[in-house]
């Protein structure tokens, strides 16, 4: 776990995202109807989901690790990852709503992508409620770890699979090509990939900060 105390990857993450502010706003983008300049949101809206996905994957990893070894610290890491994941989830939903207002016409049009993302959000809120409703530490850790492992694939199916099988306005759904197919030309990749990588590491960074605070709190509250 030495990795979380090192600085180099945090600097890399900051530099990556910093570069996308310039490349993402200034470099030429494909001119498309309806989207116009909002296509640049791709560099800021989609990386929120990437950041969320990264910390949720890490969270599942620590939940499995907890169930195997029963280390309390792994349980704390899993919770803090979910906390940060929910922050990025909210940011993704809100930016998506704003983008939808000016391309689809409404903040919330009951689109399958939006609806299932909202359900997945509640799924993870339920995780936190479940945790807080159990007083006994080991029981809480075990039950929430199992819930977390099951919640993750359901979230993946809800956000990334089901909307693509029906008609959705969101790119990548129901015969509606994702950006990657026709629109994401090589020029856009210069800003898109650094943004995805950079925001993933920033999400991870915030999670490690929360985890370290949690460790100190945990030590303080422990009965010696």
């Amino acid at each position, binding site marked *: 776990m030495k990795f979380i*105390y090192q*600085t180099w990857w*945090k600097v890399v993450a*900051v530099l990556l*995202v*910093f570069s996308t*502010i*310039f490349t993402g*706003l*200034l470099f030429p983008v494909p001119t498309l109807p309806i989207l116009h300049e909002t296509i640049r949101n791709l560099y800021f809206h989609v990386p929120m989901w990437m950041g969320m996905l990264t910390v949720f994957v890490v969270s599942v990893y620590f939940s499995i690790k907890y169930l195997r070894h029963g280390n309390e610290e792994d349980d704390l890491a899993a919770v803090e990852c979910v906390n940060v994941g929910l922050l990025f989830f909210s940011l993704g939903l809100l930016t998506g709503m704003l983008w939808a207002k000016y391309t689809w016409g409404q903040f919330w049009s009951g689109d399958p992508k939006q609806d299932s993302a909202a359900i997945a959000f509640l799924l993870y809120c339920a995780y936190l409620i479940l945790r807080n409703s159990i007083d006994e530490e080991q029981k809480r850790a075990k039950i929430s770890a199992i819930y977390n492992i099951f919640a993750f694939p359901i979230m993946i199916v809800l956000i990334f699979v089901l909307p693509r099988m029906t008609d959705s306005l969101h790119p990548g759904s129901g015969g509606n090509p994702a950006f990657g197919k026709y629109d994401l030309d090589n020029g856009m990749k210069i800003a898109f990939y650094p943004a995805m990588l950079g925001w993933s590491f*920033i999400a991870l*960074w*915030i999670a490690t*900060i929360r985890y*370290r*605070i949690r460790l*100190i709190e945990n*030590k303080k509250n422990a009965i010696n």
Partner: protein
Amino acid sequence: MKKLTFLLLLLLSCTAVFAQDASVQMDDALKSNGKIYVVVTVMAIIFTGIAIYLFTIDRRLKKIEKEK
């Protein structure tokens, strides 16, 4: 460390002032291209601020962890 961050913040505030000052001139880079550069600068300042803030939290945490 605190002094250093303060200095950086002061420097950053200077860039904002410069941006306003420079916009009086007509042939300004910040004014070209539909003033998109102003948005770029604002976003760069915001993100730099958040990044510095995160780094200071990180550093403070390191200090507390060492005390333990």
